[in-house]
């Protein structure tokens, strides 16, 4: 119970931090991924793009938004807490570092819920035919967030300076999207990049989200890989995120 209260309090602290930035936050959460959707549609030829491609663009935009939320913004938040001395304030409390990380993760999930819902609404408005399998979609999104957040935590815990960490999270957030078959089919990628993309969580996330949006099952393998990646990145993140320095 205490642990749950700790997580909720950390979440509330982060939430209160964005209270005056709701407008810019929603704008950023929506504009980047929506712009990517429109860009991909334009490149593919809006009129001729088959429904399957448009569904991929929407799924890609959702994964892009998750990547932004979980790595770039969450990383920024963690880095800000660390390098402005706020983390020190948490470290003075009888609070487990894992509770802090879970509180911040909860905040990322809340952000992702807002941006994903917005994108789904916009996708529908733009005529993308979706028949979401919501339970699977939610599982895919949560696993993607956990996995990507783990990476954000690792970078934030290891960065030597705010600017170094910020550069890394931005690079990682964008790199994971554009090096994986998120907005395009894997066949369109050079073979070396295609092989590399098999190591990226966004490859599995994009496939899982796209399939879940199409209403289909058959994403067990993708979810399994995402789960394993989430466990691995979070375990590493928890290991590195500690109050006590050596």
């Amino acid at each position, binding site marked *: 119970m*205490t642990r749950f*209260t*700790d997580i909720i*309090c*950390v979440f*509330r*602290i982060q939430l*209160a*931090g*964005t*209270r*005056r930035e709701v407008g810019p936050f929603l704008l950023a959460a929506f504009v980047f991924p929506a712009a990517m959707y429109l860009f991909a549609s334009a490149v593919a030829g809006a009129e001729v793009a088959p429904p399957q491609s448009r569904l991929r663009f929407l799924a890609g935009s959702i994964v892009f938004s998750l990547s932004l939320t979980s790595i770039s913004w969450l990383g920024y938040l963690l880095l800000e*807490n660390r390098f*402005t*001395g*706020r983390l*020190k*304030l*948490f*470290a*003075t*409390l*009888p*609070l*487990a570092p894992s509770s802090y990380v879970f509180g911040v993760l909860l905040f990322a999930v809340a952000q992702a819920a807002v941006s994903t819902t917005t994108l789904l609404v916009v996708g529908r408005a733009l005529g993308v035919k979706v028949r979401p399998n919501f339970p699977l979609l939610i599982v895919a999104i949560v696993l993607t967030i956990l996995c990507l957040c783990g990476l954000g935590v690792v970078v934030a815990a290891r960065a030597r300076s705010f600017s170094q960490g910020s550069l890394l999270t931005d690079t990682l957030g964008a790199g994971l999207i554009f090096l994986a078959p998120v907005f395009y089919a894997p066949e369109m990628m050079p073979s070396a990049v295609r092989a590399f993309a098999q190591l990226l969580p966004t490859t599995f996330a994009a496939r899982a989200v796209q399939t879940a949006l199409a209403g289909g099952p058959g994403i067990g393998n993708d979810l399994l890989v995402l789960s394993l990646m989430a466990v691995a990145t979070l375990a590493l993140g928890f290991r590195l995120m500690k*109050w*006590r*320095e*050596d």
Partner: protein
Amino acid sequence: MTATIESLSHVEVERRTTAPAPPREIAVRVRDLVKVYRDGTEANRGISLEVLQGEVVAIVGPNGAGKTTFLRQLTTELRPTTGSVSVFGVDAVAEPERARRAMGITPQEAGVFERLTVHEHFELFARLKHLSKRKAREAAREVIAELGLTAQTNKSVGALSGGQRRRILIGLALLGRPPLLVLDEPTTGLDPSSRRAVWGVIRRAVAVGATVILSTHYMEEAERLSDRIGVIADGRLIAFGTLDELLAQVDRSYRLSYRDRIDPLSDLKIRYFASFAQAQQHIARELLSEYSIARASLEDVYFTLTGEAFEKEETGAIG
């Protein structure tokens, strides 16, 4: 067999009430604390001390002497290379989270959450100290009043002055009335009246039973607030005791400031003496006419112990 108060004779009751207070328990015990950083810097070299319950201990020392490293190890933020720290009997090295439950900590440099209101900041952190909702609200109100921030209760922390933010950091340490307060330079950057307000807060915490360990660069603060003073220099605790004990240690209980008889336009000269009589003898021997004798201060002891250059412009009345 333990006698109840009713079964004791008047004499026994009187004897018991006038007898000296029982020895206080040890709140913090530090043994042979060594911290060597990865780059080889030896920040603490075998510090040992004991702090009694209800005591105020000030740690002073030059910049880079190892004060903050010492306090960070005490608060479990930094793992000692060797040595032990025990807080109310809890091994702070082995059980840092449990040890922190007994502590209220103000780090030297910590950030506040600027977008929270003052009340939210205190209430949420009180919850993180595991106070119930009601108690957290009460604790927040109480601390806000104690720190003189009532008018700022619903203001964003970001709108506060630097001094007020520093007070928030001190207030966060006070939440939940922990039995041990560890304050790293709590009044640095505060104006004189804010500093005195913080002294009042610390004194009130001690009055209700708190033990306080603080570091400071202000000798006056250490002298006024603390029961005992530790001087850290070059990573070592080179002196630890009451002001009188420190004065006795350096054999400099009195300071004589005087104008040279032969060269009256020269700067004031300063000499220290172990006793008032010795200072008087010196005055008589040197036929001094312009002089003042004062009880030596912590600052005098500090400069003697740390070997820092004593560059102080002396002004004021000459006796």
